[in-house]
């Protein structure tokens, strides 16, 4: 446990040194908060861009508070996932390239501790950033539109967080055996996009797919209650997260620094 804490502290210190603790939360806040504001100011934005014939009247339906918050989440589904993959893709692969992993692993450090400390480090960073961004977005939606009940907010926060955790764990998984960070990022993005596309087009067959967590979160935010497919989906996602974590430890142990 002591060894694990040392590795974990090393991860956190490294993220302080390369400013991840500053820019990742701020970026997540920007991504999330931008969306309700754009929706709110849409009429003014269209006005100022001009180009409309004189007297043209555009009636924009005022989005509901739920729609505005869901818009923030859809930003996380694209930009947020992209940022998570980009900052995680070098976590192990990069250290292996630069030789840091070799320096650490010649000491009697267990592979499981090495991998899980890294995973937990990024987890803390991402969940912290995600909470800041999502909470502020919820607050802005409350000011600009109307407040969504706090329980709905917290529930949707945790449900959607599982999807982000899933993406993160998959990235760590590919880190365990691919050499180049670029390849890790590319493959993880490909898999995430493919999974989202397949699950949303075949949603009647794959209603437990982790990629559908975002869809279920939207139902939650809109105040339509807990969809019955949600519980199995959460369980399957958690199971897959744990499975890929174990798999990455096993593969990493075998491949080592090859």
């Amino acid at each position, binding site marked *: 446990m002591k060894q694990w804490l040392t590795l974990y502290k090393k991860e956190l210190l490294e993220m302080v040194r390369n400013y991840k603790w500053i820019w990742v939360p701020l970026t997540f806040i920007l991504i999330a908060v931008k969306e309700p504001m754009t929706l709110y100011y849409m009429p003014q934005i269209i006005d100022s861009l001009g180009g409309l014939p004189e007297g043209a009247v555009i009636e924009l339906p005022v989005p509901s508070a739920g729609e505005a918050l869901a818009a923030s989440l859809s930003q996380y589904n694209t930009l947020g996932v992209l940022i998570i993959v980009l900052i995680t893709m070098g976590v192990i692969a990069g250290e292996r390239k630069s030789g840091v992993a070799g320096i650490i692993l010649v000491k009697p450090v267990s592979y499981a501790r090495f991998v899980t400390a890294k995973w937990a480090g990024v987890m803390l960073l991402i969940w912290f950033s995600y909470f800041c961004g999502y909470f502020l977005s919820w607050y*802005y939606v409350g000011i600009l539109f109307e407040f969504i009940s706090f329980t709905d907010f917290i529930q949707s926060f945790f449900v959607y967080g599982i999807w982000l955790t899933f993406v993160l764990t998959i990235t760590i998984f590919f880190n365990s055996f691919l050499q180049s960070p670029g390849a890790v990022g590319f493959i993880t993005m490909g898999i995430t996009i493919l999974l989202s596309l397949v699950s949303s087009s075949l949603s009647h067959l794959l209603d437990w797919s982790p990629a559908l967590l975002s869809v279920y979160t939207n139902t939650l935010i809109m105040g339509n209650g807990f969809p019955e497919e949600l519980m199995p989906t959460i369980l399957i996602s958690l199971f897959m997260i744990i499975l890929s974590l174990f798999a990455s430890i096993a593969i990493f142990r075998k491949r080592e620094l090859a």
Partner: protein
Amino acid sequence: MEILEGINWAILAPIVIIQLILMVVAIFDLVRIEKTDGPKWVWALVILFINLLGPIMYFIFGRRSY
């Protein structure tokens, strides 16, 4: 500029401040860092002139150590 008057600055200010912080931190890091991926002056231009995305792109692609 009547459009500017219609906007509530108390709502918009946090976004502007966050952008400024990102920009300042990125520039501060760029000055102190030994080597970047690509010429330093290009990154300075990117950080200063690409709105919103510039500092983020610098942190992800500019300062990678591998």
